[in-house]
């Protein structure tokens, strides 16, 4: 019997929890004691709550217009792009192409040695009626959270309904689109990410970001944008007959490094008593600040230990995390250069801090914090 993969229910793949396990779990829960009162509401949490309300209002205000990268990061990832980069992104005139019934407009573009990104508005051509979706049109409309649930509300359908089901119910054509940035592979850093956000007027903004490896030497990236439109056959969504696609050229100016710096590392600083910290460098770019920590695995270190336990985090003086950098990733990508390890972290700030606070596991695996000063 063929399964319906769009209405998958995996609960039947599990046996019920044995009573003995439930008893053990609930005994553990009941064994906890109140002890001293838990810190509940401080001035700082009040401040955070206030900021969240302001941020939410800002997003709501943006809802009437076309979403851009800053909405993408603030709404889904709680971070923002430094102001300089925001201004650069929108400084170039938008460019437009038409693929089938859909008009694509590159509204934001940016690149430096560490990343390249675009945001592309996709909207139906004048006189064309229909629903615009990303490439996951067989999924529930509401699957991407608040933003896509708002689409369901606007269309007057349940958020659990798939895009295909909604189009059938409303008797409207369904268009699926993608618009991704294609960068020469010799410049790739790590995995690219892409995602749509749905604008209030029925158009959508497609976001695509490619982390780069820092090797670019020219002041321009000759990139391409892959544009794809599919008019979905509602009775056979896998049918690709009505697909139009194209690679179009897009030049993106490469922004220069604003500042480089290095921090003083106390002699013999070790992580997990197995990895020596050799240096920590900071590179400030308009898109944010990149930390590169160089470590050497000592003889006692194992690769398994590195993969499982090697974690570094540069935090604020009060122990709070900095806003995440827009590559949305940190860590090391492979152990090819063992015993040398390069650990990276990006944060969203627009200056190099004089002092940083590095949190890492000590010899016993407990988190310890080291305060490091900038080399003059």
């Amino acid at each position, binding site marked *: 019997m063929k399964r319906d993969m769009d209405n998958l229910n*995996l609960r*039947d793949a599990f046996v019920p929890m044995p009573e003995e396990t439930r008893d053990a779990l609930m005994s553990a829960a009941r064994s906890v004691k109140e002890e001293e009162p838990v810190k509940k509401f401080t001035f700082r949490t009040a401040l955070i709550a206030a900021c969240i309300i302001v941020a939410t209002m800002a997003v709501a205000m943006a809802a009437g217009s076309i979403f851009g990268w800053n909405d993408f990061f603030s709404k889904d990832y709680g971070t923002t792009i430094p102001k300089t980069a925001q201004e650069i992104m929108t400084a170039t005139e938008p460019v437009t192409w038409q693929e089938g019934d859909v008009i694509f407009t590159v509204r934001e573009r940016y690149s430096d040695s560490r990343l390249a990104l675009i945001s592309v508005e996709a909207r139906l051509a004048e006189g064309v009626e229909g629903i615009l979706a990303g490439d996951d049109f067989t999924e529930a409309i509401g699957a991407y959270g608040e933003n896509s649930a708002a689409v369901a509300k606007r269309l007057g359908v349940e958020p659990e309904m798939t895009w295909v089901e909604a189009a059938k119910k409303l008797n409207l054509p369904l268009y699926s689109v993608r618009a991704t940035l294609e960068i020469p592979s010799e410049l790739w850093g790590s995995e690219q990410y892409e995602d749509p956000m749905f604008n209030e007027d029925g158009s959508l903004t497609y976001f695509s970001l490619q982390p780069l490896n820092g090797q670019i030497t020219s002041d321009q990236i000759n990139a391409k944008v892959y544009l794809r439109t599919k008019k979905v056959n509602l009775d056979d969504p896998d049918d690709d007959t009505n697909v139009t696609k194209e690679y179009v050229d897009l030049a993106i100016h490469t922004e220069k490094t604003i500042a480089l710096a290095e921090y003083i590392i106390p002699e013999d600083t070790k992580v997990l008593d197995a990895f020596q910290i050799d240096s920590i460098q900071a590179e400030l770019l308009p898109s944010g600040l990149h930390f590169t920590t160089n470590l050497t695995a000592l003889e006692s270190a194992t690769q398994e230990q590195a993969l499982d336990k090697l974690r570094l985090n540069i935090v604020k003086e009060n122990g709070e995390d900095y806003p995440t950098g827009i590559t949305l990733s940190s860590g090391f990508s492979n152990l090819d250069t063992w015993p040398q390890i390069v650990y990276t972290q990006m944060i969203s700030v627009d200056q190099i801090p004089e002092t940083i606070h590095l949190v890492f596991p000590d010899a016993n695996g407990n988190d310890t914090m080291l305060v490091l000063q900038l080399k003059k």
Partner: protein
Amino acid sequence: MDRGFFIAEIETCSDMMYRVAWSILRNEADVQDALQDAVLKAWEKRDKLREEKYFRTWMTRILINVCYDTQRMHRKIVPLDKIPVQGSSAPDPDLAIALEALPEKLRLPLVLCYSEGMTYEEAADVLRIPMTTLRGRIRRGKKELRKELDAE
């Protein structure tokens, strides 16, 4: 968060916690240990939970980390045919066997979204991966699951 609220929430989440832990550990004794450890750890870290309405996703994230720790501590070579399979006693044995055949990286996103009803946003948050990565894993997971089911 007071003790009463904590106990009540654990009770509500208990079945979900069991399925998530089983998806990773696939061994009743390890699951039992991980569930208890996760509960104690969650209570220790209770001041880190900013809003009580996020208890379920917060608890799931702690549980997954504890399961990974358990997995690392107990890492040993076990022949594939010796890994216990719940399949035969699950309500849908074919589905259980197919799901257990998937790599964990694909299995866990599917379990969070299609057994525990999390949105993609919640599951990405729990697994600490970008939503795009999650979507990719779901897509691949479904494809692999279909392949496994068709093979039976």
